[in-house]
């Protein structure tokens, strides 16, 4: 037991002593906020939609709730399979008198007592008591609660198992399953003829927790077997990584004229941290596409939408074309930090790096908007507004994000297993991420309510075009700022205090 305690204590020390205590407390705060925010958003949106759906479909709320729980569990599995969790470094323990089985148990325990699982409990308890006790009684509610918690732990073990087998293939498979089920859902928006099977099982079958526990034990045994086989000094990471040779051959085929663009592509594809942000971006864009489809087809409120332009819709428009620059761009200089010193001693101008990055951003905005456009044309909602926000993302947001990226001053390891590895991720990045989405949507709505739609369009378009026309001047200001703070950045990138 002492070994377990020591390893968990070391894990805590690893977090709290990584750079400096204060910064890491901020990071932990950001992490907890993110998880609670995302999960509560999913839950609350879901429960908010139940009465709305009921009014639209006249369906039984139990059936709607059943579909909702099914959706939650599927999306939870996908999110956890895509998102990576920090695992305590096991290498120092391998030469000590600790059995590999113990280390594998530590990893599994850490996995089960994770923040998402705890937040699951926090969120599901009030829901169970609020919704189930009045209708089904206390015993059924408790039964439901135990089942949900067991499913959550099962999901965390299953997602670990998925990652231990093959990171990419199974994630691709999960995304495909989701897309197929979504397409089915879109074709037959509300097909609620079935019984609420899932809910029925969780409320009335007494053996469900036993079966779930058996599943859990099987999952734990399988994971333990795989973990024990991976615990060797020469394994750089517990999870399978890209095959180097394939990647190198693939990259050799891409003959980029710009060496910097080539460097950026390598940076994105070959390092865990940027790669998982890229995956997150793809996931988010898929999510916004689903949300758009929900707005129009699922709720069948296209008429209302064409008149009102809700704030959330504007935010979706911004994310759809600027997803990449928001999630990758904010960390642009952070990603350069492991070789920033090297670049600074070569004859490469900062202006070249920034211009190069700017052109990468605007190309990504254009490519993403072209991908989203067919769906918007099919749904036929606010094409002009979407195009206006594409223009805004090219003219203003890309420059704003480039400017914000110059505030990357923390040390970060690119190849550390990540997302939710918040090295170099502070308050600024956290709030900036939301600000570049929420503020333009807010300003647009405010202007539209006061000046009317034509004036709002004119003002937004004029500012965006001004951003495009004067991008060189604005970039030179950003470059000047970076040049001025170069020494501080180099020191902080090396992990030194300034």
């Amino acid at each position, binding site marked *: 037991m002492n070994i377990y305690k020591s390893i968990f204590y070391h894990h805590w020390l690893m977090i709290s002593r990584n750079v400096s205590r204060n910064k890491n407390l901020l990071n932990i705060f950001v992490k907890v906020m993110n998880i609670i925010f995302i999960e509560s958003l999913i839950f609350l949106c879901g429960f908010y939609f139940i009465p709305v759906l009921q009014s639209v479909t006249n369906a039984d709320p139990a059936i709607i709730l059943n579909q909702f729980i099914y959706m939650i569990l599927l999306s939870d599995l996908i999110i956890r399979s895509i998102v990576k969790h920090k695992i305590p470094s096991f290498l120092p323990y391998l030469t000590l008198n600790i059995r590999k089985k113990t280390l594998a148990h530590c990893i599994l325990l850490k996995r089960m007592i994770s923040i998402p699982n705890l937040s699951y409990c926090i969120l599901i308890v009030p829901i169970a008591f609020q919704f189930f006790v009045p209708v089904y009684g206390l015993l059924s509610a408790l039964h439901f609660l135990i089942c949900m918690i067991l499913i959550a732990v099962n999901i965390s073990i299953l997602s670990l198992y998925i990652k231990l087998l093959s990171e990419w293939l199974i994630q691709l498979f999960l995304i495909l399953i989701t897309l197929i089920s979504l397409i089915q859902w879109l074709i037959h928006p509300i097909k609620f003829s079935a019984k609420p099977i899932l809910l029925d099982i969780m409320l009335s079958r007494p053996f469900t927790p036993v079966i779930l526990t058996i599943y859990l034990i099987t999952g734990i045994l399988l994971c333990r077997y795989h973990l024990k086989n991976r615990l060797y000094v020469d394994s750089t990471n517990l999870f399978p990584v890209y095959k180097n040779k394939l990647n190198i051959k693939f990259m050799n085929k891409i003959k980029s004229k710009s060496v910097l663009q080539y460097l950026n592509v390598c940076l994105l594809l070959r390092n865990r941290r940027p790669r998982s942000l890229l995956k997150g971006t793809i996931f988010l864009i898929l999510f916004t596409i689903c949300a758009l489809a929900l707005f129009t087809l699922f709720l069948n409120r296209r008429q209302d939408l064409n008149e009102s332009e809700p704030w959330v819709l504007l935010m979706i428009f911004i994310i759809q074309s600027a997803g990449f620059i928001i999630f990758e761009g904010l960390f642009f200089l952070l990603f350069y930090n492991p070789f920033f010193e090297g670049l600074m001693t070569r004859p490469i101008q900062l202006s070249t790096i920034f211009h190069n990055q700017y052109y990468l951003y605007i190309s990504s905005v254009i490519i993403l908007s072209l991908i989203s456009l067919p769906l918007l044309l099919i749904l036929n909602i606010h094409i002009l507004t979407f195009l206006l926000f594409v223009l805004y993302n090219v003219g203003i947001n890309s420059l704003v994000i480039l400017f914000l990226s110059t505030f990357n001053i923390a040390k970060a390891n690119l190849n550390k297993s990540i997302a939710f590895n918040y090295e170099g991720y502070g308050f600024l990045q956290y709030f900036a991420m939301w600000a570049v989405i929420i503020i333009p949507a807010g300003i647009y709505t405010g202007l539209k309510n006061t000046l009317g739609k034509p004036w709002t369009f004119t003002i937004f378009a004029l500012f965006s075009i001004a951003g495009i026309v004067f991008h060189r001047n604005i970039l030179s200001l950003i470059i000047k700022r970076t040049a001025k703070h170069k*020494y501080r950045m180099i020191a902080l990138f090396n992990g030194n205090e300034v």
Partner: protein
Amino acid sequence: MVINIRGLEKKYKPLFQLYLPQLQIPSGQIFGLVGNNGAGKSTLLKLVLDLIRADKGCIYSGNKRVDKSEVWKTYTGSYLDNHSLIEFLTPEEFFIFIGSLYNLSNRNVFLRLGMFRDFFNNEILNQNKYIRDLSQGNRQKTGIAAALMINPRVLVLDEPFNMLDPRSQLILLNLLKKYNYDFGATILISSHNLNHMTSLCHRIAILEKGSIVSDEMTSKEQIQEYEQYFTN
């Protein structure tokens, strides 16, 4: 290319202070820096490369101040530590990248890398490995080769012998001597290896707590003096 240091001061809290009132390294000289850990050798080299800002004073490379103009980058090659490498590239990709910054075609890059055949010992090129997957010594070899490959007129190396095996150390020693002889490059080098330093450098300075306590042209007898100095 002459390197001139005037009234240079760099303070680190709470005790360390690098202070060099006057130091000139003539063109074509191999200038060695030796000193205990924390003496300020790497700090001085970083100041020469404009990677940290001096509190006072300035450094001239040629007739340009390194913190005011970036012309020095076009003729300076350097390798300090792993931060000079882009670890997610393969060595070949890294050399091509560096070459492109100095307008070298791919063919020229590989022609120039020919001179490092012995140094690489078939462990760097065509291995289908990223730099991060190479051993420490091979990473160091990659960085040193990338610095030398561009035929710089000023070469800055921080402890280049540290991670290398004895054979590679000797090859590097000869490479640097030959490079200095052929191209007349100014070389700034820091190391703890007194034998190599006395064999390689024209002039050696001892740094102690941020100040130069000895600065002399190298002779065969000097190695005993240095050994005595560091023993005491």
